């Protein structure tokens, strides 16, 4: 065969250039090209985080203390979790403005169940209770209609829990909150995907409505305290034991290394496109070392009065967020469902023509967002130890959307990962915490947070423009 006659093997080689033979330098150059081409991912957020940490460390002597960092985690966890669910909605280029107040409803139901000793009927009154059950039934019907079986099952669990009138139990109450969140998502989703109302309008209306529901459930000026429940209180305020922390390290870091490395070598062996082994290896090593250091620091006594009280161990919110992160990432990257979410977000018409069930995908992301928001509400309620009529209102939603966008999720759809929400959540929590320590007052905190969000949105829009221009 001469060079002029293309052979099958030559054609394969055309596609094979960068499969396994890229050197680390080439791979790095490719990465830099992509960054220059507008694919920034979480890079700006990570750099911003680094900058913020440096600034606050210099400005405040308390910022970089173990106790404050643990506190920062617990403060930011609720919003971050809501943001993780919102990533799914944002991936479709949709928005869920009601995720905050919807999470407030789930928290209120959970707290009411606890405070009223399991008597929700008594706590709500007959009419409200009946309407509530009616809405849950509607949610089940909606999910069955669009064939979102998991959503229907979860919403049905909420009905069962209500019908059985289960005694107060923190685990059942948390389950109830999550299932109510699922049901809310089914209702939101069906209005958007089947009735065809734009998500902005539906969720703006529901934002207001759910806020009213929370007020109705709790009563004007009331608060439902949940701090008497050791379990509910521990969610955001408790820590793993020292041994437990190390077990978490081994499971999480070891699992990460095992999955990433086995996947990498599997690809190399099969001759598929893969990053250079050196890069993958160093990334894994960096993650393992960093989490080992973090785990060690969390096992040191961080109490402000070390002589009188001991506070050690990784906060529970860390494994909670890690589990959500792993599950969310797996779903988006490795399942057919996740692929379809990206496809619909990238080009709805193309996805439809390829046979993707677009209405189902569109509804499902709202179900996920509300269910995950319920988990977020459990965490933020636990942090303050009570639920009041403002639960999930105010800045909660804006911060959650902000976290996702700051971390690199595009508001235009099709681009984003669950880790974006975690990184962006860390940025926002750092801003809040750091400015709080400097006691600059809420005015400055809000202004600065707003500007950070604006900055992130501009980076998103600019990188998109750049991506268009360079054809990335």
């Amino acid at each position, binding site marked *: 065969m001469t060079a002029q006659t*293309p052979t*099958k093997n030559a*054609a*394969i080689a*055309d*596609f*094979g*250039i*960068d*499969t396994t033979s890229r050197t680390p330098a080439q791979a790095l150059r490719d990465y830099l090209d992509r960054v220059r*081409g507008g694919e920034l991912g979480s890079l700006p957020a990570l750099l911003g985080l680094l900058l913020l940490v440096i600034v606050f460390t210099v400005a405040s002597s308390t910022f970089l203390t173990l106790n404050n960092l643990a506190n920062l985690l617990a403060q930011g966890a609720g919003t971050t979790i809501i943001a993780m669910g919102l990533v799914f909605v944002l991936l479709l280029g949709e928005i869920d403005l009601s995720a905050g107040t919807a999470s407030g409803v789930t928290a209120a139901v959970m707290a009411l169940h606890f405070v009223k000793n399991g008597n929700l009927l008594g706590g709500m009154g007959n009419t409200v209770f009946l309407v509530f059950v009616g809405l849950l039934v509607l949610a089940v019907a909606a999910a069955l209609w669009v064939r979102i079986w998991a959503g229907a099952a979860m919403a049905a669990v909420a009905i069962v829990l209500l019908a059985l009138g289960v005694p107060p139990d923190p685990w059942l109450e948390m389950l109830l909150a999550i299932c109510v969140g699922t049901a809310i998502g089914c209702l939101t989703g069906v209005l958007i995907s089947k009735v065809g109302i734009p998500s902005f309008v539906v969720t703006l209306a529901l934002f207001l409505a759910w806020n009213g529901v929370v007020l109705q459930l709790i009563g004007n000026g009331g608060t439902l305290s949940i701090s008497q429940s050791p379990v509910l209180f521990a969610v955001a305020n408790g820590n793993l034991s020292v041994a437990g922390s190390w077990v978490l390290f081994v499971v999480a870091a070891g699992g990460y290394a095992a999955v990433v490395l086995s996947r990498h070598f*599997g*690809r190399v062996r*099969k001759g*598929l*496109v893969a990053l250079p082994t050196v890069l993958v290896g160093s990334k894994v090593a960096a993650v393992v070392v960093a989490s080992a250091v973090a785990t060690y620091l969390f096992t040191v006594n961080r109490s402000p009065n070390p002589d009188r009280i001991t506070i050690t161990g990784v906060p529970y919110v860390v494994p909670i967020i890690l589990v959500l992160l792993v599950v969310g990432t797996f779903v988006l990257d*490795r*399942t*057919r*469902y996740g*692929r*379809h979410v*990206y*496809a619909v*977000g*990238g*080009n709805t*018409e*193309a*996805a*439809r*023509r*390829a*046979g*993707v069930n677009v209405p189902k995908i569109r509804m499902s992301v709202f179900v996920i967002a509300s269910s995950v928001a319920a988990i977020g509400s459990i965490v933020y309620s636990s942090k303050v130890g009570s639920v009041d009529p403002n639960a999930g209102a105010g800045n909660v939603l804006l911060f959650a959307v902000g976290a996702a966008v700051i971390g690199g999720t595009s508001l235009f759809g*099709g*681009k984003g990962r669950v880790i974006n929400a975690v990184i962006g959540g860390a940025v926002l929590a750092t801003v809040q915490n750091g400015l709080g320590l400097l006691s600059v007052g809420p005015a400055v905190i809000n202004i600065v947070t707003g500007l950070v969000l604006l900055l992130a949105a501009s980076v998103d829009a600019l990188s998109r423009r750049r*991506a268009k221009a360079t*054809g*990335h």
Partner: protein
Amino acid sequence: MTEPILELRGVNKSFGPVHVLHDVDLVVRPGEVTALVGDNGAGKSTVVKSIAGIHQIDSGEVVFDGEPVHIPGPREAATLGIEVVYQDLALCDNLDIVQNMFLGRERGKGGFLDEADMERAARETLASLSVRTVKSVRTQVSSLSGGQRQTVAIAKAVLWNSKVVLLDEPTAALGVAQTRQVLDLVRRLADQGLGVVLISHNMNDVFEVADTIATLYLGRMVAQLPTRDLTNTQVVELITAGRSGDIGLAKPEVATV
């Protein structure tokens, strides 16, 4: 003559008050390229989308492999073995080549993806079509040229062992060399035994690769004849006037939309 693989009989389609297709007949045979020509707005894309299950026909029959079929959606069309390469490119910019080629029909067990299998199959398909110039099958589609995108879209059709491939103006946005590649690809599809429908405004392309030419005029099928029985001038007349000599509509002047 071989039996048709796909046939339209008396197909009508309206969008609200606009009657776009009037009693359209079309015959597609395996191993042949059937060119579908007509002026802008004649209804070519509508024919394709009706076959693909994107639009539902109002009346008439679609016959596939000798059986009358009802095609309620893209998935059903794909199940039958009908693949479409759309005029308005139907690829997801944010996905890579492999992901696009398998979109809607991902491989893997129980909802989990088998990336290795898909990547290998995609690469083999592209290689079998002698597709070159793409650096990696993991390149995002957004960074491909128009011709490369078109190639991916066509390769997607081949991947599925389809029986009929419909191409809606696959060369419209392409340069000379890339048009050449795509036309070669089109011919190769037919030589592999597929029924190919090619929509094009370029008469040179049509006369080069098509075995038969079907002409739409204001939503009416005015003639479907073997390419060797037609001249360039005749086809242009059919396209613009609905009639050429004694072929075409009896009274094109009374045809209205």
